[in-house]
């Protein structure tokens, strides 16, 4: 059904002065919020994020708890007992992080695939503030949801495992790991957004970020030199960043939890910085 065409244009300039105020960062953030909430992909990816992350945490914890005595003691010790908190988060975040990565890429690339970037830049011709507002809105949205999911995962996982191993938020490093899980997911999402803003192409961006998160750690494992492997691997964004949601520090670990998270932040800042520079330089 098409709209009834109005044959005549009636000027709206009878409204003498439109009520408005000088464009500020708040206006641009509000607009970015409208953008992100008004497409279905946001709701879908975030829904999948919650379901997958908490669901897989529950599933892995339940399978482990149900077969507790059937598990090899050595593998049980290594996988669960040495770091039950790391086990709880690792189970859900492993796959759940990909939904955040996809959303991060989409938020940046759909501007280009749909051509909205032209409308956006006509409305906000100063390009650094436009990207900054996008980063802020996406970052805050993911942070809030990721913290909720992190605490949700923790409580679900620890409740299921509690017959065999007791973990509480007051335990050493546990609160840091739980808050850290949310922070990790947020900064990883921003890294994905940086990739998207650089590549400007959805399929390409998603492929690259999945490669960085899942494939790169496997590829570095093929390197023959152990020292080289250790040092390279430790500074990969996903490997370094994920240290923040583990409690146990292995003695071969090169970086502490916060150092690792810092490395992830540097990766994200670097990519977003280059993306912002190119956004400002390139034709839209």
């Amino acid at each position, binding site marked *: *059904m*098409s*709209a*009834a*065409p*109005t*044959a*005549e*244009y*009636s*000027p*709206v*300039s009878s*409204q003498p002065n*439109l*009520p*408005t*105020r*000088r*464009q*500020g960062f708040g*206006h*641009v953030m*509000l*607009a*970015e919020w*409208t*953008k992100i909430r*008004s*497409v*279905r*992909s946001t709701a879908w990816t975030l829904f999948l994020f919650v379901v997958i992350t908490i669901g897989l945490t529950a599933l892995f914890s339940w399978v482990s708890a149900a077969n507790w005595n059937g598990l090899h003691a050595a593998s049980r010790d290594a996988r669960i007992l040495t770091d039950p908190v790391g086990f709880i988060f690792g189970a859900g975040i492993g796959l759940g992080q990909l939904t955040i990565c996809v959303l991060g890429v989409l938020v940046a690339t*759909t501007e280009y695939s*749909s*051509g*909205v*970037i*032209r*409308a956006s*830049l*006509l*409305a*906000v*011709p*100063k390009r650094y503030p436009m990207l900054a507002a996008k980063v802020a809105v996406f970052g805050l949205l993911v942070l809030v949801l990721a913290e909720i999911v992190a605490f949700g995962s923790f409580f679900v996982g620890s409740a299921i495992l509690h017959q065999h191993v007791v973990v509480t938020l007051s335990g050493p490093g546990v609160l840091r790991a739980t808050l850290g899980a949310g922070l990790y997911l947020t900064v990883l999402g921003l890294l994905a957004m940086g990739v998207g803003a650089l590549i400007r192409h959805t399929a390409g961006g998603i492929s690259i970020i999945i490669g960085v998160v899942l494939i790169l750690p496997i590829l570095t494992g093929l390197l023959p030199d152990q020292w080289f492997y250790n040092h390279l691997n430790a500074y990969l964004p996903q490997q370094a960043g994920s240290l923040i949601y583990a409690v146990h520090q292995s003695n071969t670990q090169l970086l502490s939890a916060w150092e690792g998270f810092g490395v992830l932040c540097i990766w994200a800042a670097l990519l977003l910085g280059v993306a912002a520079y190119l956004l400002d*330089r390139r*034709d*839209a």
Partner: protein
Amino acid sequence: MPMIEASDLTKRFGDKVAVDHLSFAVQPGRVTGFLGPNGAGKSTTMRLILGLDRPTGGQATIFGKPYAQLSNPLLTVGALLEAKSVHPGRSARNHLLFLAQTQGLPASRVDAVLELVGLGPVSRKRSGAFSLGMSQRLGVAAAMLGDPQVLLLDEPVNGLDPEGVLWIRNLMKQLAAEGRTILVSSHLMNEMAVTADHLIVIGRGKLLADAPTEEVIARGSGQSVRVRTPDADRLIALIRAEGGTAVPATNGNGSNGTAAAPAGSQAAVLTVTGIPAARIGELAASSSIVLHELTPQLASLEDAFLELTAGSLEYGHLDANPADWSSQ
């Protein structure tokens, strides 16, 4: 004071020059047509004016400022670009809402422009399902959102049905009558002839003409007269004796769409140049030649345009390929 001004504007893509030292000014209160064949650099020039592309040289200003320095740009300038710029999954209302929010405009303004363009009933539907005409209306709504004094419209009637064309045409005239500045690009010469008061013609990124529409038309090829007579041979002889030329008219020639001779009719249709219509009538009367039709033909803007671009060919600026600029 000119509202839009380009001075020495140049844009290169690699070694291809899209806009070549272009200088012009667009005045308020009239529709200025921005005319040129496909690939002449019209869209690129508009993107340079709007700050979407970075000029290689020169500059474009609106109210004396580069676009990026306008503080609430949509309140000053509205643009309808040829390329789509709406997310297909977003509703028309949400698209306009985010644009309004960047300017500090209230949501009520969004509803006002949606009503203005007749999209009120479908404003909450996914814009990806819109027809071309509806998308164009949404584009106009976005351009009018800030009630701007300056409007840039890139090929606004492309692909629209006659009703849509008429709507855009009246809209532009009305907005110009309100004192606004309208720059509208097109490769359709006849569309510009009925819409634009003033023309800026470019070819290969270079300025070919910047003059009132009538002047551009008048500058074109000389006037011709369409004559239909069953006694063509005698009339041709008389016309030649007077120093005019007469050639059989090709079917469908003439932009006013006059029907060709009906089948079976013995009358031939001639296109006569060099002699005014009145004199042809006198010649025919003096020799008792029957005339079925005697119509002076105004040179169309298209003819004028071909003339202009052919002129630039003499200076080696343009590859003449009429297929590029024939009206569709």
